[in-house]
């Protein structure tokens, strides 16, 4: 997962042709449709890479 | 007068109408896209040569008078060839009160042209712009893409000399 639009695992199906209603929320708080620690970590890795400080992310 | 005609003919010969066709191809059949089409043509030639505008009129099926009506309305479109270096004197409020008219005057004196004109050797074209948004550096001029800020009239000559 290099950016939020990439799928964390095969359970994520969001594409522009087949969109998911929870996509935006899922970027920061996901995965929402399933539970998986490694999928959550993938998202956090994207955030940690660019977050300037603890106030940076706004949920 | 004869030189003007010669210049125009000389320029006419260089206009590659097939290039015009390819530039405006995406806009055919979309009359509302005449401004982007003219912008593309000007990006390529540096100005709007008459034969190119005639071609746009024919291909886009818009009367030539209408196209000229649009082209002459907007300051961006130029009907004459321009110099290698475009000097843009910022006439924004901040520049004005920090003395941009005195800078413009000095440039006009040195180059013996007025705003909107081009030197005979096609080296410089002098233009005014409303604001280039570098107010902290007022007064500012841009020569092509290079800004020169915090100017005083005595600095102008050296700057112009550095563009040959």
């Amino acid at each position, binding site marked *: 997962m290099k950016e939020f639009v990439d799928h964390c695992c095969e359970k994520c199906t969001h594409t522009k042709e087949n969109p998911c*209603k929870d996509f935006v929320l899922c*970027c920061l708080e996901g995965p929402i449709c399933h539970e998986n620690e490694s999928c959550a970590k993938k998202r956090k890795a994207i955030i940690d890479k*660019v977050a300037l400080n603890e106030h940076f*992310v706004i949920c | 007068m004869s030189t003007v005609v010669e210049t125009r003919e000389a320029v006419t010969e260089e206009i590659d109408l097939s290039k015009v066709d390819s530039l405006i191809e995406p806009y055919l059949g979309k009359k509302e896209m005449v401004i982007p089409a003219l912008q593309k043509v000007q990006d390529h030639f540096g100005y709007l040569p008459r034969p190119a505008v005639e071609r746009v009129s024919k291909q886009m099926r818009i009367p030539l008078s209408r196209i000229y009506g649009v082209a002459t309305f907007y*300051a961006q479109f130029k009907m004459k060839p321009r110099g290698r270096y475009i000097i843009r004197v910022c006439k924004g409020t901040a520049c004005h009160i920090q003395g941009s008219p005195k800078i413009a005057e*000095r440039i006009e004196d040195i180059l013996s042209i007025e705003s909107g004109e081009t030197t005979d050797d096609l080296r410089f074209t002098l233009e005014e712009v409303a604001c280039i948004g570098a*107010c902290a550096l007022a007064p500012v001029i841009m020569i092509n893409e290079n800004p020169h800020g915090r100017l*005083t009239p005595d600095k102008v000559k050296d700057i112009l000399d550095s563009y040959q």
Partner: protein
Amino acid sequence: MYEKHLMICGATGCLSSGSSQVEEALIEELEKHGIKDKYRLVMGGCPGFCEVGPLIVVYPDEVFYSRLKPKDMAELVEKHLVGGEIVERLLYKGPDVDAPARFYDTIPFYAKQKFNVLRNSGLIDPESIDEYIMRGGYRAFTRALNMDSTTICEEVKQAGLRGRGGAGFSTGLKWELTYKAPSSKKYVVCNADEGDPGAFMDRSILEGDPHAILEGMLICGRAIGADEGYIYCRAEYPLAIKRLKTAIEDAERYGLLGENILGYGFNFKMNIKEGAGAFVCGEETALLASIEGKRGMPRPRPPFPAQSGLFGKPTTINNVETFANVPLIVKEGGVDEFVKVGTDGSKGTKVFALAGKIRNTGLCEVPMGITIREIIYDVGGGIKGGRAFKAVQAGGPSGGCIPDELIDLPIDYDSLNQAGAIMGSGGLVVMDERTCMVDLARYFLSFTQKESCGKCTPCREGTKRMLEILNRISEGLGKPEDLDTLDSLATSIKDSSLCGLGQTCPNPVLSTIRYFRNEYEEHIEEHFCRAGVCKELFNYRIDEEKCTGCTACVKACPVDAIKGEKKEPHEIIQELCTRCGSCIEKCRQDCIMITPVGSEADVSN
């Protein structure tokens, strides 16, 4: 993971001061130490403080380095990045701080600011949609997708958001009118044709946070039932256009623009139109004509664009800053937060471009209701060179000047209108005693006169006549009845022009006459321009008592009009002097005076 992030201001102001060269030098230094991969460099949006650019802010430490030069980079890398020690020498210093200010929030320029619209500018990489999402982006839009049109319009109305482009019309009401107009096709248009000379706040938002504008437009589209949007942007803003294009591509790729967005059955297509250089296209009906490929001329209203706009369809037009405010309002709990800032009639913040004879030139975002004094002295750091404050021009060529005696006026739509100025797009140009108010009025009028599209005769011809009179006054040929003539012409133009340009263009003349009548009279009756601007109406003269004979002015004079030996008092040869003012800029003894033509009296301070 990066050890640190270095945000380099890549906006026009800093680029002009040389920020790309600073970036190159920084990369070179990092490579020399072999540590380039540990640091993230972002050439991003504008932190606003153009005066002390080029700027770099180092995160997470939040250290603000200013006035950087390429040769400073070796020290910055070695000492701060490798050694972990702040480079004092490169911190912000100014008369308003006791010691070099280490952190962003200890610099007085930022102390009274409140970042709503500029919330992401300079903090995120404007070309990264992920970073926009991390800052809470597209959440308000997702929420709007779950709401019906009426509720969205209602929230925007409750928030009291007024158009940031000039007139201050209620945004929610505008949306509601477009929503109620029956049509299967509607448009959202973003006016990014920021043409006021001296104003560059919209560009800063476009360059620093393009997704905020897309999100605002999407929410508007959802509210009014539109499926297509246009952003009409000045061609003079190439960087803004590039960033918008990237933002649109990314939003399409993410499924946030296009067909059936996020599965809600909502479609939206976004287009960019480049303007072609016509100030009048900032006027909404002229702008629409320009998008349609016509001459950008305004038309009578009604019908308003909300009923019949682009291609004859109902259209909502808002400016950049208005749209950038929208996601803050429509987000969860947004209305309550939004109304906490501002005054009763003017909610939220306003971005201003501070320029002119002020120490801290740049962009600032302040709560509505802040006084002019606070902006000039606290945010702006006071007048450059310690001269006396004379007036501030608010609202550009459509606005008016606010004199010294109204310095405690709170800045909101209604107070400014009462004072004869307008909020306009947010340009604030500060003037000191060396600014001539007649010349200022003449400057603005010559601008609007050139930009008048010519459709309404009073605007086309009347501004020309007014300009002739002002030209005469500044050449010393004014007549006593001129001021009355100006007043009557101005009134006719205001009353009988179709669009905002004509209706407001006499304002600078009217307000300078209102507050600086004596200055006009001095020009007309005594043929004297005290500010030393109108060239026919003053001489420069060297005070022999004060002159130390340093020859600075002799060297500065481009026409050799100053004679004098070293350590001897100099003298200006009036016949040769072109009154360019180079000498007065260079004189360190303050001994060059502005005197009436043919008089020996010392009237300078």
